[in-house]
């Protein structure tokens, strides 16, 4: 994905057991903060058709 031009950090992977609720909360907090810092992803947003 990064090779194609997605910003580094936009895509993240984690392995969390269903018993690791604390880790789940930590990861969600971290990922949310990291993605908010990157800002909205406009790359895959479709634009409205431009009408004259």
């Amino acid at each position: 994905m990064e090779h194609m031009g997605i910003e580094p950090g936009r895509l993240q992977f984690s392995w969390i057991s269903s018993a690791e609720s604390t880790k789940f909360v930590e990861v969600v907090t971290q990922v949310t903060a990291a993605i908010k810092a990157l800002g909205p992803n406009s790359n895959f947003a479709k634009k409205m058709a431009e009408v004259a």
Partner: protein
Amino acid sequence: MLSYTEKIREIAGRLLQSGAVEMVIGFRAGTVPMMNEPHFAKTPADVQKLVWDSHCGINLANYLTDRKEKIGVLAKGCDSRNIVTHIIENKIKREQLVIIGVPCKGMVDKRKIAMKAETEITEVIEAETTITAKGHGFSKTFEKKDVLQHNCSLCIHRNPVIHDEMVAPPVVEQQGVDRYADVRSIAAMTPEQRWKYFEDLLAPCIRCYACRNACPLCYCPTCFVDESRPQWVGKSLDPSDVRTFHFLRAYHCAGRCTDCGACERACPVGINMRTFTKKLEQDCLDLFGWEVGLDPEVRPPLDVYRPQDPNDFIK
């Protein structure tokens, strides 16, 4: 390579006559120059139509999927590796096949010749190392090595990896080829430049799916792009839909693509979609030491778990 034709006809005739196979898949001359088409020879008359020259770039493994009969198939290096992949993926049984190996010196890119021609090419005459294109009041001779398909010029497996018969002794493999120069040039760009690069690359795409149809790896009964419940990807020409298609198509080929160039060859607008698959090919080599289709007994890296598989990307 031109002397192969007689030998191919001899082998095909013998296999059909002895009943070893019910059909031989090869090439016949197309209706326009430089466009050989697949040929399914079942009778002695069919066998006489078989030809071999530098325009046999189509990957014949594509025509083996789920066949039930005994088949003789011509195989260049890349075709043979795709046949191995087909055997691994249970799309054909080894016992059904008589593989007629064809040592390959690379296929000619018809676009490279057409771009240098002043008029429409009506005739092409081939010699051992040169190729002459003729049109109305025009004739030009090219060195074959200057007009090879890009993937052929980077090829390091020109000889078939499995075969039952060979039409000629093996050719010398290319040494010291830099296979991933184009991947590195993209890796050197910033994310914005990369996004722009692929945007420009895919801009002419008309979503005809010729790349998918020409690819021997794409044999799903219903492709994800054709499904409507659920609809995995938008069907419009919006850049994000086009990119999603190409991106997912490439991912489906991860660890399976032999860089045969069938996709690029089939593209009516000349998109080099190998740019996507090359990156995956390089990753498979770097991360798993994997080269596709060399041995029918080895499972592909995305098919097996090994404790030493790299997993640094998982947090």
